[in-house]
């Protein structure tokens, strides 16, 4: 080796220059990364601030104190229960329940009671000073006068959590959608988790590595990536048209979402099973355990945290899904909460979709509030998944 003829690369000026260049590239890269992260954070913060800012007013509902005339005529025409000029100020959703209420409480007839009742959504939006409230100037003057007399107040909007969808925004809530989501998700869980886990166990622990299983593997990986709306078409064809499951029911939706979630659970479970070291299996086999005993007693418990995490993430994804449900008829106007899995139901994301398309201004804040509720549920689900992984995972 003839080193002496070569310049010493490790102390020359050229080297220093090169090192400087490398360091500059290094710090540039560092900044690119930081900028990307900063941008992503900025989007996230903007989104949350925007959604929360829009959603907060939805949790308050304006009420007005008016004279309610409990007269005989109100039994057939509820408009008779309030002064003519207040007809557009009082919520019609509340007014129209009067006839039934009067029939149940006939002793009220003949009374004139000053009471707090929910206000119409336009009045509500006007009081909240939102653009596009849509309240005519004639009524604006009435409402202004009422506000001066202290006959207007804002209360917690409990209806948002206890009532279903409504065409009158002041009466619209997420209850029926939430119940529908729970039913749908339960079915998805009951179908997708056992089938997915069993499939993964079979593929990972029992099957031989041949062409057939390899084709299945490739297919499962592909299925996890296809657009979810295709599962909707599949669900429509198999469950509704062939098996006769009622359209729009939580059962139809749950089964369809189960199809969509299956590949995710299978892939997550297989990864969890693969992470269990083979020494565990060998030790079990060495003591004479059968394949099933090995899996059931040793491998599965060790893989459980991973399986649970994968399943929860799969279910969270199913919970936020609308596209396949559109096809099986779950994006519909369903104000009553379903009593069982065969009745028509809708789900939270579908409710958000429906409200986002409504023209009245009051739905805007309700859309944001529903998004907030859905996000909270999804974040808790993902948080649970993270907790389970951190708490129970074992490393080798």
């Amino acid at each position, binding site marked *: 080796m003839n080193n002496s003829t070569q310049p010493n690369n490790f102390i020359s000026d050229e080297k220093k220059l090169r090192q400087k260049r490398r360091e500059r590239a290094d710090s540039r890269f560092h900044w690119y990364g930081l900028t990307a992260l900063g941008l992503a954070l900025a989007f996230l913060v903007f989104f949350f601030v925007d959604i929360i800012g829009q959603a907060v007013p939805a949790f308050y509902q304006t009420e007005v104190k008016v004279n309610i005339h409990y007269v005989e005529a109100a039994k057939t025409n509820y408009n008779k229960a309030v002064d003519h000029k207040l007809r557009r100020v009082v919520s*019609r*959703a509340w007014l*129209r*329940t009067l*006839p*039934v209420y009067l029939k149940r409480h006939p002793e009220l007839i003949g009374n004139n009671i000053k009471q707090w009742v929910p206000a119409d959504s336009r009045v509500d939006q006007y009081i909240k000073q939102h653009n*596009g409230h*849509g309240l005519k100037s004639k009524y604006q003057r009435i409402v202004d006068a009422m506000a001066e007399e202290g006959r207007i107040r804002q209360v917690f909007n409990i209806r948002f959590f206890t009532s279903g969808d*409504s*065409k*009158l925004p002041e009466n619209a809530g997420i209850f029926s959608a939430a119940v529908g989501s729970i039913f749908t998700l339960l079915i998805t869980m*009951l*179908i997708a988790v*056992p*089938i997915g886990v*069993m499939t993964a166990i079979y593929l990972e622990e029992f099957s031989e590595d041949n062409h057939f299983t390899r084709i299945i593997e490739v297919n499962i990986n592909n299925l996890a990536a296809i657009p979810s709306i295709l599962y909707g078409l599949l669900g429509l064809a198999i*469950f*509704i048209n062939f*098996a*006769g*499951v*009622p*359209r*729009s029911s939580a*059962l139809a939706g749950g*089964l369809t979402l189960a199809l969509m979630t299956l590949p995710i659970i299978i892939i997550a479970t297989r990864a969890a099973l693969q992470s269990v070291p083979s020494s565990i299996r060998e030790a079990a086999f060495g003591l004479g355990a059968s394949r*099933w005993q090995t899996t*059931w007693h040793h491998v599965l418990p060790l893989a459980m945290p991973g399986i649970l995490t994968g399943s929860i993430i799969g279910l969270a994804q199913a919970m936020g899904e609308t596209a396949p449900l559109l096809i099986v*008829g779950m*994006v*519909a*106007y*369903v*104000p*009553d909460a379903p009593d069982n899995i*065969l*009745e*028509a139901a809708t789900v939270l994301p579908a409710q958000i979709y429906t409200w986002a*398309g409504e*023209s009245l201004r009051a739905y805007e804040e309700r859309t944001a509030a529903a998004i907030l509720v859905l996000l909270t549920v999804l974040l808790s689900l993902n948080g649970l998944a993270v907790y389970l992984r951190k708490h129970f995972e074992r490393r080798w």
Partner: protein
Amino acid sequence: MKKQYAILMAATFLGLAFIGQAEARDQIRIVGSSTVYPFSSYTAETLGSTTKFKTPVVESTGSGGGMKLFCAGNGMNTPDITNASRRMKSTEYKKCQENGVKDITEIVVGYDGIAIAQSKTTAAINLTRKELLLAVAAKVPSKDESVLVNNPYYYWNEINARLPHRKIAIYGPPTSSGTRDAFEDMILKHNTKHWKVYNDAGFKHFHAIRQDGVYIPSGENDNLIVRKLTKDTAALGIFGYSYLAENTDKISAATIEGVAPAPETVQDGSYKLSRSLYFYIKQSHIKKVPGILEYANLFMNERMIGDEGECADIGLIPLPKEMRDHYRSHLKSLVRIKLEDFAKK
């Protein structure tokens, strides 16, 4: 453990197979047009909250999608009522008959109309549907009608010398809107369906609106369009008819083929930018699902579709009084539509 799982799974699948047999339903199912949807679901809600019946489920599938579901058969898995913003087609009727949906009652609930409006201070303008098409379509026929070209018109008098030298600027609903659908149907599809140069170019229902800034999609908020029209006095705006009526102090309507939009001109059909809204009842379900007639009667009630009804409040143009009575009697005697009916009109 394994055995229990196997039994559970088997039970699930058996259960699935039997669900189709359970044919009882106590909740009305309604599908169909997104234009009728607001009125239909409003009525559904009123039925649910003021009577003992469950609130009907209303799904907005579009008129065509609704017909397809409605005509699929008589099973309890098919809808009881379908809404439509156009009449049932004879092909759809035949499909219904083939699938055993024999007895269908047709009801008209009201009208849907579109107004072309401008600032009240601007000189009156009269347009034809064809002129409107030439103003808003992305592609229009060349002067000799041989090929389709990108829309070259920027002033109304370029379309027709009779019209004023006035900039074409049209504020209208965005693609998500039902009014936009109606506009595309009545102006674009209606005109291009039988226009040779469009058909030759392979368009049966041409409905692309130009995107070079002449047509300005303005959000669902009609208030905003009104405000823009008062400032931009050369511009036109497209509204659902009900909105024009509420803002007559600021805007006035362009006449279409010489007719101004008004309840009377919509009702007698002389104002061309309007259409009837329908719903269809499957008679075989009336005895099986409780509340169908109650729903239909409530919908046809003066309280809903009358001149001062609640549906009029949310944008329905009421039928004339005698038409309302006419369709009420249809409903009362459950008149069936026949194939001959489609030959008329």
